[in-house]
């Protein structure tokens, strides 16, 4: 029906691997979408080894948060920011970027202008969290 909802996206929505607020975290960022009331919180440890999210939203948002947690794990703040920029670029332009790995599953969202915000919301929350690190 649409290559936006690829298997990996549906899978991460139904069974996210990094969901839930962890007992310990050093920084937290929030994102909210006024259009639909969707929300996401991103939890970071200072070492950046492990990311968690608490997503109340659509499949695109949840998959984006969960795949982000995979990709950003173990990265430095600078590297995470770079990743965020690369991701935003990819989902806005619709051009996959080899550096993004599984996250490229979300690039078709570029064809759905009003949904791009769903994909990038966790990343804006991440950037907010990074300000506290």
């Amino acid at each position, binding site marked *: *029906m*649409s290559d*936006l*909802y690829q298997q990996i996206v*549906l899978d991460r*929505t*139904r069974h996210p691997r990094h969901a839930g607020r962890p007992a310990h975290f050093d920084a937290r960022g929030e994102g909210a979408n006024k*259009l*639909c*009331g*969707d*929300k996401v919180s991103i939890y970071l440890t200072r070492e950046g080894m492990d990311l968690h999210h608490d997503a*109340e*939203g*659509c*499949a*695109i948002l949840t998959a984006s948060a969960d795949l982000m947690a995979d990709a950003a794990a173990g990265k430095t703040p600078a590297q995470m920011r770079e990743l965020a920029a690369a991701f935003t670029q990819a989902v806005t332009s619709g051009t996959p970027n080899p550096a993004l790995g599984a996250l490229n599953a979300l690039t078709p969202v570029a064809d*759905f202008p009003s*949904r791009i915000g*769903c994909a990038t919301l966790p990343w804006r929350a991440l950037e907010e969290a990074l300000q506290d690190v």
Partner: protein
Amino acid sequence: MSAILEKVNIEALREDFPILKEKVHGKDLVFLDSAASAQKPRAVIEAMTHVMTSQYANVHRGLHYMSERTSEAYEAVRDKVAGFINAAARDEIVFTRNATESINLVAYTWGRTALKPGDVVAVTEMEHHANLVPWQMLRDAHGTELRIIKITDSGEVDWHSLEDVFADGRVKLLAVTQMSNVLGTYTPVERLAKFAHAHGAKILIDGCQAIVHRKIDVRAVDADFFVFSGHKLYGPSGIGVLYAKADILDAMPPFMGGGDMIAHVSYQKSTWAKPPHRFEAGTPAIIETIGLGAAIDYVNAIGMEAIAAHEAALTGHALAVLPNIEGLRILGSAQDRGGVISFVMKDAHPHDIATLLDRQGIAVRAGHHCAEPLMGRLGVTSTARASFALYTTREEIGALAKGLERVRKMFA
């Protein structure tokens, strides 16, 4: 009306709406978002084109042919609107940009003069932001109080709550929708008006949704204020209506200052024109007003009763069919309800539903529908919403149901 005759009529009417022939993502457009804004029949488009190609000039201020013809056509719509909602007089019809402006106009002018600090404005839990935020702004600027009347789980006005809210006699305005843009509920406006009047309050009716689907009679209802937007009634954007009883309008100070709303201007003091002109500052939405007139002629020619009957049949069909989809839940179950159906699905977010339906050519809305507090009451953050118009067919509801089945399977 037999089912066959009805079918024929709808197919014929669909021919009047050029956009319905469009393809979306290679699929036939199934437009189920008319509650947000309706599509326009050729008669409206042609009326607007006609003004611009053959009889346009600014209104009211001109002594020449084009201006006189345009002024006549513009003012004729005032009569049309008055007739359409059965107002007592044409001067009770004020043209605005949209229903939102109509309500703000009332809040700024009547609200700041007829209401005193401590007076109460009451709204229900199912108001559109347009009928909530202006009263919040009035509260914060003018010291009035804002009270919320609860709705029942079925999505109807909770009469106990209404009585509670009115109990201390301080409510001076009941501002209430005639039809919820989320739940499809019709409110019993005649009873509510009687109740408000018996308690010394005026009633403002947000008729945005109701006027599209039902015959409106502001005098039978005894409405003090009634507002709607042209763009939902198959008319153009940029034009709305405020109806208010003549004595109320007469006592209201102007909203905006400028040309056409004055009787006399000097540096020291200006005096105001009589209603409705007092409230129509500057060059009005001339072309759009004339377009609205064509829209009213159009629905009148079909007949509001015929439209209502068609939509009632559709709504009944949809309410029978949609619940068969596993995990789908319709919000609201009012006795008296129209063709606006909000729903949620287990495991599928309304955004994803809307996007996936769109790929099949089916336009539904998803979000809080400008009724964020109502979402909280319903225990959701957003819903998907399908809404019907005079051009909606049974087949389109079938397409919706089929589309939703596909969505369900993806997320199952």
